[in-house]
């Protein structure tokens, strides 16, 4: 099956429903989110916050405080729905492209739209995907040191008092 994304949206919409459900592959990634969020709104389904946070330290600047990354509820819902998000390796390829010294603009954006989408993920799998998507590979893949520079934690472990936010570091004692 080929998915001709150059067809008008309404035409692709009709084809996407031919199988009885909704085949997201007939839509570009941005279109998928608009359709998904609209359908979720129609059904009055709540998109809750993730119960997790990603704590990590930027190894390129050790003086910086620990970072706290949290997913968008809509992104998380799409990840858990399945069939929408591309494999995380697509983002790695685009990141590599952008890191090239002669980079001007993306020429492989089609990977976002035409790569076979990920199946439904659990929330935990989605957070692991997000780690690989937004945290530098030098942190989650390549770091071999003894310090804990990356943790997925329940939100209850993130301090509520931000008075000393710029001094936050990952607690090594509970690593």
């Amino acid at each position, binding site marked *: 099956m080929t998915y001709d994304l150059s067809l008008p*949206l*309404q035409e692709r*919409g009709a084809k*996407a*429903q031919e199988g009885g459900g*909704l085949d997201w592959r007939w*839509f*570009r*990634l*941005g*279109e998928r*989110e*608009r*359709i998904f*969020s*609209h*359908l*979720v709104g*129609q*059904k009055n*389904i*709540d*998109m*809750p*916050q993730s119960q997790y946070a990603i704590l990590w330290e*930027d190894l390129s600047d050790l003086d*910086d*405080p620990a*970072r*706290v*990354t*949290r*997913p*968008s*509820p*809509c*992104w998380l*819902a799409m990840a*858990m*729905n399945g069939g929408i*998000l591309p494999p995380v390796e697509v*983002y790695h390829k*685009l*990141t590599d492209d*952008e890191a090239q010294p002669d980079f*001007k*603009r*993306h020429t*492989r*954006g089609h990977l*976002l739209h035409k790569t076979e989408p990920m199946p*439904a993920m*659990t*929330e935990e799998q989605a957070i692991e995907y*997000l780690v690989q*998507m*937004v945290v530098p590979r030098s942190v989650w893949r390549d770091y071999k040191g003894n310090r804990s520079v990356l943790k997925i934690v329940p939100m209850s472990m993130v301090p509520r008092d*931000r008075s000393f*936010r*710029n001094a936050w570091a990952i607690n090594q004692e509970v690593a």
Partner: protein
Amino acid sequence: MVDYTLGSTGAEIDAAIAFADNGAAKAWVNYNQVTPAVNASYNNASVTDSASGVWKVNHTNVFADAFYASGYAATTYITVLWSTKMAAASCEFVTLNGGDIGVDTDGNNATFTGTLA
């Protein structure tokens, strides 16, 4: 665990598909850095709280290049804002308290327009 089985019918899907044609902003986010949490968004995978008043938006559908436009408004504080470190995949903001001190804001609203990859 939330059940995202939509079970939508043809008419509902048709309406949603028509809606997909209408979006103007290529990405937007309403972000509370105090909690921190993304309240609502479009084309936003996550936001990273990097330090007081420093937060980075990570796009789901990356932009074609780093030359896109961002707009910003805060709902609670009057702040000076810098939009820095723009990349195709992300954009980092710095919210200041009118001087050079980073300040956390509970109502950060950012929009992005440009060409998507």
